[in-house]
């Protein structure tokens, strides 16, 4: 090919390129970036090549770069002459035949269709592929691409990166031509300045100013460097940019070289990017061949060379002075600035260093002008930025968005939220030296200043999404481990400061943290940030400082309570199931004990961890299921049903009495201390049980005439038979807990009286107030709040409700109410404003309600209740909702539409949530939070009044049974520590409650291959009108097999020593 020397030659190359990009024959392209190859793009390419040859069709097959949607790779595009480009996703090699067939018939394989592209703005050029395929969604209607603006990635995934003619076909090297013909370097710098383009490597310095310094520097030699030493874990923007469109980078550098008076350009790229290196080398070769690089470029007398240097992979070499040291053959250690590289850089000469992405922005700015560029993005940060969106998110890939876009658009619109069943907790931006931004702050616009304000950085564009399975202390530890090992060691703060920060973080994650550690860590972080020599040290503490700032509670959990909620820090958890259980039940132990045929021991293990095992065995939300590792193999172990089985086996046999004696034998000697517990719900019962076991004299004061709280009065008989609850209460009373009924603490029995008669008081009065919906019509007869409704039914009181009942809500109370309505012979319809998957109720319960014939209307928000002349309910009107943006709970917010629907009904049950008793809290005289709940210490549960403790729903808001019980357990332990003096003996007293069971610590050689056993339910017809318990437990054989399915995560592999 002759060198391009004039516009005529340029046009000829352009025509030739267009003939390849939009040939008169079908064109097939395969996404051959590293992401595509990792997913099998090479096999697809070869299969397509073979298929083309076999078919004898005239087809042009080419490889292209990454189109951004890495989670859909391998991508194949098909373009028939005159038709749109059709993008196929998740293509496998064996789809080749079908694709070839599609080429001849024009009908694309429906299961492979991803989107279509009718026209494309290459910024430097515009391509119209053609129109058609109305049934296929245009690319920018796909959620992942909606809102993206491709400037840097303008050619990626569309042109063949190994063919300079295709780059020229879409307007490539036109900007260079323009600059060289004009010959006015100062006007180019003015344009870059006017665009306010900021360095995309992370620091965000104004590129125009940097160019200006360099252009003004006087020297016999000057150098231009492209920093492609991308080393952040989880970030691969630069790699894909080079792989997909290397000429865009070269063009930017050649323009820069001309404008700043340099004759040498160097691309410093990681050796770990072999494909990028290969494509770049090929591009340099081609640019030389076409007279766009080397001597006498475009016949304008300008000489400029670009050389590629491969870095050996030190992270610090991304720092410009270290990069220069590395280029000069020294170890990659930074130098203090000033002097800045623009004054004294490579070989002591003025040097300009810009990131890959900065260079890729140059040609578009020259072509379309600075005003066009500044239209996109925010005022201070114009243009776009490419991010690699990775981590715990549905859609992963390269995303190019206008700067200033709120973080939540990335997470929820582009990324479409967390992976199923999880919630996003935080986003880590800027790689290992960035910070963690909590989900509450996702409204933050992504630009240099806003991220810095939250203690994070833009960095080169890494964006790692973290969910509730990520421990923030561990995240900080991980990143510090990285920067610590990448620290060059030159300056003291970074070398030793990070070393000490890492050792403190290691201590905390191992459970050896102290509160002084937090102070030291914070101080160290600040010192390292402010005193370090280069950017690595100055930003390395960001993960620590931001997690301390935004997730301090997680640090405190690790330090004070030795608790890692995410279950990541191994030393703090026995097993994933134990860690997820609010009561921290030693689940593998009771499974193993029962498997060894030791029913009594297994039960003792259960009851000492959880004093209401038969009730929790029926109604617990079983968070253990979410964590069980067996799910990666087949299905989770049915732990809840096993402990229900164990409890039922004891309670329903003559083993009960001997077992009670055995438990009583474990009681500590009487202490002579008296403790009052207000409320006999699960929290109060749990606290009372442990306090009694610890030897205290415990009295429960209960407002109602029977014990059990919500278990007795809110959970219906068919889920938790009263006879089962009775046995649990027998056991708790059996260990010495006294109960006084019909006494409302704070009213019938003033707190001061309690204070004088008891050494400590525990308040666990629950959340019995139904939240009220302020709708027109709630004053009508037969509008019932759910809890009083359930309570009346439990008391066998008469409730008038008619034949058709509407239940508003989506929680367990709504489901319980609806199923209770069925059992009373009426019809039940649940109206819920979101979708089924958003319902907070236990999934099995929703399913059971469906089976029994409860009707569900989703996306229905109550509008008003209509009554007749007598004030009776006759209908309810609802507004249909549609799901809008994601809210902080990670669910889409329901937005009312104009559509109103009417349902005829005779009564309405409001189950929209329970709240605490404001009257009690106000009357208590204790310090209250803004919303009116009692203030307690998070760890000791002590209130503002010494000796008074509070726990359960009254503190946390309406929760579930096991969470409520955990409050009681925690309070009992802390009250005992306080009552019995110093905490060391308290610790020993608590530990002494639990026997040291001897059981096998051998991992099962071969875990049972049996499938999960679920409990049997009565048939829907038979149960829907009966109060009989719906779910029958496991049989002993099933329970045994379930125990054998446990993988014994509680056992740690230890390396054998010789």
């Amino acid at each position, binding site marked *: 090919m002759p060198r391009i020397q004039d516009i005529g030659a340029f046009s000829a190359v352009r025509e030739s390129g267009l003939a390849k990009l939009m040939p008169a024959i079908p064109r097939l392209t395969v996404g051959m970036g590293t992401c595509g190859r990792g997913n099998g793009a090479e096999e697809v390419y070869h299969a397509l090549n073979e298929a083309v040859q076999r078919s004898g069709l005239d087809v042009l097959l080419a490889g292209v770069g990454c189109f951004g949607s890495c989670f859909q790779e391998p991508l194949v595009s098909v373009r028939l002459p005159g038709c749109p480009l059709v993008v196929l996703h998740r293509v496998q090699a064996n789809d080749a035949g079908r694709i070839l067939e599609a080429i001849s018939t024009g009908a694309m394989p429906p299961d492979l269709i991803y989107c279509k592209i009718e026209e494309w703005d290459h910024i430097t050029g515009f391509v119209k592929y053609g129109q058609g395929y109305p049934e296929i969604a245009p690319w920018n209607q796909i959620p992942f691409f909606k809102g993206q603006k491709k400037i840097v990635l303008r050619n990626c995934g569309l042109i063949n990166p190994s063919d300079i003619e295709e780059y020229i076909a879409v307007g490539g090297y036109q900007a260079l031509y323009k600059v060289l013909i004009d010959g006015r370097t100062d006007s180019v710098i003015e344009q870059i300045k006017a665009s306010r383009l900021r360095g995309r490597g992370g620091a965000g310095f104004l590129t125009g100013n940097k160019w200006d310094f360099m252009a003004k520097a006087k020297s016999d030699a000057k150098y231009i460097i492209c920093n492609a030493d991308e080393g952040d874990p989880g970030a691969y923007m630069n790699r894909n940019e080079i792989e997909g469109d290397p000429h865009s980078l070269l063009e930017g550098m050649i323009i820069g070289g001309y404008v700043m008076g340099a004759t040498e350009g160097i691309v410093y790229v990681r050796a770990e990017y072999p494909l990028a290196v290969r494509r770049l080398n090929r591009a340099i070769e081609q640019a030389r061949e076409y007279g766009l690089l080397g001597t006498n470029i475009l016949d304008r007398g300008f000489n400029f060379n670009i050389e590629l240097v491969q870095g050996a992979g030190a992270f610090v070499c991304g720092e410009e002075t270290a990069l220069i040291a590395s280029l000069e053959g020294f170890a990659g250690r930074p130098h203090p600035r000033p002097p800045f590289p623009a004054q004294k850089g490579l070989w002591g000469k003025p040097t300009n260093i810009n990131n890959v992405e900065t260079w890729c922005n140059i040609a578009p700015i020259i072509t379309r002008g600075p005003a066009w560029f500044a239209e996109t993005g925010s005022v201070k940060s114009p243009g776009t930025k490419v991010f690699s969106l990775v981590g715990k998110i549905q859609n992963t890939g390269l995303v190019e968005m206008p700067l200033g876009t709120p973080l939540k658009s990335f997470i929820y619109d582009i990324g479409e939220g967390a992976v199923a069943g999880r919630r996003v907790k935080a986003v880590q931006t800027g790689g290992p030296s960035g910070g963690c931004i909590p989900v509450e702050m996702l409204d933050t616009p992504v630009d240099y200043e806003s991220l810095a304000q939250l203690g994070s950085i833009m960095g080169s564009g890494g964006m790692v999404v973290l969910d509730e399975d990520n421990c923030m202390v561990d995240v900080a530890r991980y990143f510090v481990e990285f920067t610590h090992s990448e620290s060059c060691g030159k300056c003291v*703060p970074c070398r030793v400061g990070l070393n000490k920060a890492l050792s403190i973080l290691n201590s905390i994650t191992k459970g050896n943290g102290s509160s002084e550690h937090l102070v030291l860590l914070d101080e160290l972080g600040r010192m390292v940030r402010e005193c370090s*020599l280069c950017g690595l040290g100055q930003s390395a503490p960001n993960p620590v400082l931001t997690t301390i700032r935004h997730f301090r509670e997680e640090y405190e959990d690790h330090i004070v309570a030795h608790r890692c909620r995410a279950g990541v820090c191994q030393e703090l958890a026995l097993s994933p199931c134990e860690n997820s259980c609010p009561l921290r039940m030693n689940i593998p132990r009771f499974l193993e004990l029962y498997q060894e045929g030791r029913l009594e021991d297994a039960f003792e293990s259960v009851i000492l961890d959880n004093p209401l095992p038969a009730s929790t065995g029926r109604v617990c939300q079983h968070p253990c299921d979410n964590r069980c590792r067996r799910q990666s193999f087949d299905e989770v172990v049915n732990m809840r049903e096993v402990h229900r089985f164990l409890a039922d086996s004891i309670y329903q046999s003559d083993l009960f009495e001997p077992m009670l004696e055995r438990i009583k034998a474990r009681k500590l000697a009487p202490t002579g201390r008296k403790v009052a517990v207000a409320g006999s719900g699960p929290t109060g019962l749990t606290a009372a049980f442990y306090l009694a076991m610890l030897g205290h004299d415990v009295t429960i004061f209960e407002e109602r005439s029977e014990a059990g709280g919500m278990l007795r009065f809110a959970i219906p008989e068919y889920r938790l038979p009263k006879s089962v609850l009775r046995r649990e209460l027998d056991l708790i009373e059996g260990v010495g807990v006294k109960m006084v009924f019909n006494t409302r603490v704070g009213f019938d029995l003033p707190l001061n009286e309690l204070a004088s008669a008891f050494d400590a008081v525990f308040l666990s009065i629950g959340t019995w107030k139904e939240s009220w919906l302020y709708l027109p019509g709630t004053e009508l007869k037969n509008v019932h709040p759910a809890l009083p409704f359930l309570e009346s039914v439990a008391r066998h009181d008469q409730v008038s409700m008619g034949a058709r009942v509407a239940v508003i809500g989506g929680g367990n109370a709504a489901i319980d109410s609806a199923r209770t309505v069925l059992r009373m012979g009426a019809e039940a319809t649940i109206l819920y404003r979101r979708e089924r998957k958003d319902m907070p109720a236990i999934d099995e319960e929703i399913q059971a309600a469906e089976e029994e014939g409860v009707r569900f209307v989703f996306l229905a928000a109550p509008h008003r209740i209509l009554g007749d002349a007598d004030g009776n309910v006759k209908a309810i009107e609802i507004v249909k909702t549609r799901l809008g943006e994601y809210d902080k709970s990670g669910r889409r917010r329901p937005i009312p539409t104009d559509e109103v629907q009417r349902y005829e009904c005779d009564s309405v049950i409001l189950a929209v949530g329970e709240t605490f008793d404001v009257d009690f809290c106000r009357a208590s005289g204790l310090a209250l939070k803004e919303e009116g709940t009692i203030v307690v210490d998070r760890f000791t549960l002590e209130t503002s009044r010494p000796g008074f403790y509070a726990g359960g729903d009254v503190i946390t808001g309406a929760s579930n049974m096991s969470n409520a019980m955990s409050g009681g357990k925690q309070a009992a332990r802390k009250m005992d520590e306080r009552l019995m003096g110093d905490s060391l003996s308290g610790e020993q007293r608590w530990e002494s409650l639990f026997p040291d069971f001897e059981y096998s610590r051998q991992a099962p050689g071969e875990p049972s291959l049996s499938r999960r056993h679920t409990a049997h339910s009565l048939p829907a017809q038979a149960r829907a009108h009966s109060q009989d318990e719906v779910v029958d437990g496991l049989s002993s054989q099933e329970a045994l097999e379930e125990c054998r399915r446990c993988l014994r995560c509680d056992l740690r592999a230890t390396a054998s020593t010789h």
Partner: protein
Amino acid sequence: MSNPLPNKTISVRIDGELVTAHEGQTILEAARANGKQIPTLCYLKGLSAVGACRVCVVELAGTDRLLPACTTPIQDGMSIKTTSAKLTLYRRMAVELLLVERNHICSSCVSNSHCELQSMAQSLGITHVRYSYNNPRLQVDMSHPRFVLDHNRCILCTRCVRVCAEVEGANVWEVASRGIYSRIVSDLKDDWGHAHNCTGCGKCVQACPTGALAEKGQSVHEMVKQGDAVTRLATQRAGQASGAH
């Protein structure tokens, strides 16, 4: 760094006091010329400055960043603070970090009471350290006939590296590896005694601020260094090179 030919005079403020400095001077040089003391550890007059120990950081009005006085050129109109609660805290922390990094046991050190690290810790009022000691097990290189290199006492100030390269011109020393694993090495990581280019001049020993480099035959407390001699030599040489006296 210092230039024998006085450059253009400029006015700066140091700790509130308006003083005169010369263009081309660093903040440290300007401060010292005006009788202001800024603590330093890795800096040795006569050698190039590297800004490694960060003990000489100062505050500059108008910026949040702390600047190392030894490498930052002074500019007209700068207002510098050489002492503040924050600077004292950070200087202390830098020395504390050095004290826990390796094994600085003064009672058994040849440089006890003649050690710059020790006197720095004393002048900063460090009575104890708040971080856990690393207690690394490090080598002592006894292979040289006249000198000893004890890595346990090394603070990686690189004065030895610089004096050998810049004054003696022998380039025996370098820093190998990185981060917390950084070590001073002689030759191509050979024993010092086998380093062919070592002239045995001992300038590195005199430049070393601690007991890391010492003469053989010295016992606890006996190793008195002559850092000034290195400075004298280096500045004389710089003077000769530029033709001034």
